[in-house]
């Protein structure tokens, strides 16, 4: 079976500082693949290249070399016009729900934009029905439609961000640290919501996190990144029970703080 998302030898270098000719390698020959229906974790510390990889896959960032495939098509060189139908299929949930939602739009506005553009619905009541459906899925209600982001807590905002992604019926969802800005009791609610999407809606996901326990909870497989390279990959059970790389072991022992009692 062909992979839904695949990268081959992705490389991306950033200039280091305005006047410097030095370059930082953010992605170094990164090859990953995600099957349809699969939830894949991407683990690493800040600066390891996780977010660069996610942005590159979504073509929000131009890579220096390598190829990106979506559903068998090489999308590396796609123009904005060519990407447009793919924007429906591929959605993004960002880390910080305080900066990823437009503060001047109502929830209805935020959600209807994608529904109108990507699903071609124009009938007002149809759009409203869809909004209510997707709000219900993420645990919000019809009454929330007219509110603005500032009226919501962090966890509720992240629900709105997830609803915005789901509203266009994507096949693939990239979640970049979606719970790390949230409080403990709220994190669990959002993780359960994502797990529900995985089990009941069968959406493929790339889930980025620095927290291995969270990745273990949600993902089937995981890639571990360090300094722009994939250093380890495999099923989550294998990685957590018998990590091969010292770096992975360090990450595990650090994230097991709570468990060591």
């Amino acid at each position, binding site marked *: 079976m062909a992979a839904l998302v695949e990268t081959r030898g992705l490389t991306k270098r950033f200039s280091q500082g305005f006047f410097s000719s030095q370059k930082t390698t953010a992605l170094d020959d990164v090859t990953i693949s995600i099957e349809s229906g699969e939830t894949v974790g991407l683990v690493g*510390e*800040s600066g390891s290249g996780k977010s660069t990889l996610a942005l590159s896959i979504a073509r929000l960032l131009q890579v220096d070399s390598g190829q990106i495939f979506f559903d068998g098509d090489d999308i590396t060189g796609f123009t904005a016009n060519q990407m447009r139908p793919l924007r429906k299929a591929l959605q993004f949930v960002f880390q910080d729900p305080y900066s990823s939602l437009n503060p001047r739009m109502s929830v209805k506005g935020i959600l209807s934009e994608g529904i109108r553009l990507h699903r071609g619905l124009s009938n007002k009541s149809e759009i409203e029905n869809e909004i209510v459906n997707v709000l219900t899925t993420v645990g919000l209600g019809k009454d929330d439609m007219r509110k603005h982001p500032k009226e919501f*807590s962090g*966890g*509720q905002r992240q629900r709105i961000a997830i609803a915005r992604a789901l509203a266009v019926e994507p096949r693939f969802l990239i979640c970049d640290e979606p719970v790390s800005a949230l*409080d*403990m*009791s*709220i*994190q*669990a*609610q959002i*993780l*359960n919501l994502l*797990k*529900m999407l995985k*089990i009941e809606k069968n959406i493929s996901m790339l889930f980025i996190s*620095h*927290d*291995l*326990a*969270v990745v*273990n*909870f949600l993902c089937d497989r995981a890639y571990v990144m360090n300094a722009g390279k994939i250093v380890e990959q495999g099923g989550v059970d294998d990685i*957590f029970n018998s990590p091969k790389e010292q770096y992975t072991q*360090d*990450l595990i*022992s*650090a*994230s*097991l*703080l*709570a*468990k*060591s*009692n």
Partner: protein
Amino acid sequence: MQNSNILEVESLAVRFGESRARAVDEISFGLAKGETLGIAGESGSGKTASILSILGLLQRATVKGSAKFEGRELIGADNKLLNEIRGKRIGLVLQDPFAALDPVKTVGHQISEGLRASGWSKKRAMKHAIHLLEEVGVPSASQRVNAYPHQFSGGMRQRVVIAMALAQDPDVLIADEPTTALDVRIQKQVLDLMKQQCENRGMSLVIITHDLGVISNYTDRIIIMYAGKIVEESNRLKLFDQPLHPYTQGLLDCLPNLGNSENEYLKTIGGQPPIPGKLPSGCRYHPRCSFTEPVCTQGDNPQLVPVKWGRSACIQLEKFLRESQ
């Protein structure tokens, strides 16, 4: 026991601005010499406000109650007394090492600033700054002392901030979310460093955090706060084995662990923490609690009741203790 406490907080209450809502609502706790104390809670629970108010660092807040450092009252104290204590007797490490350092001064300058204000010569203060940087594990300290904050990584910056806090050899080190802005591997190094410094110097340590993992490994005694109140006080061995408050139990259940199976969901605490000013009657946690009985919804927030190893503000505590036996 009471008298040996270096810091004694009693009925501390904090209000911000004109609002009548209390961010911190009559909390009391003590800190013994050489003890490590963790204060945990979600954002808005009042954990940071309580500590900053003790140090007189909240500008637009009304602070009531009492906080005595070695018997001297800090609440409402003048700047003369506070300046004798802040930095010199109580060191503070803040969450974000990127914001805590002045970008246009060398780290050596910033570490030695407090010492020079206490009358040290420039040369002696700089020498001590190098010594401190060595102690907190900054490599080639004698060169790095002349470097600027932007030349350090996040973890190294937090070490510099810790060196600053340690410069005047305080008796208490307070760290507010000291590792939240750092990567997991660096978190462990920084926490190990603080713990070790406290042991070496016989210093008391207060860690404020939202991360139960941090306190479980680095503090002996633990206070859990919810909506401005202390709901539980326990020690690190008991907190995880026998939580005394349903909120603590709920928080522990929220943590994903490596034993979760494929189609398993996490137990969650429903709803959200209350907004100050819109507190529910009775126990502040009752709308989210899964054990709520009619008795929980009436009257004021329950008082803390002592048990052998701590305190709990759950009105049904006795019943839970009986059942767990």
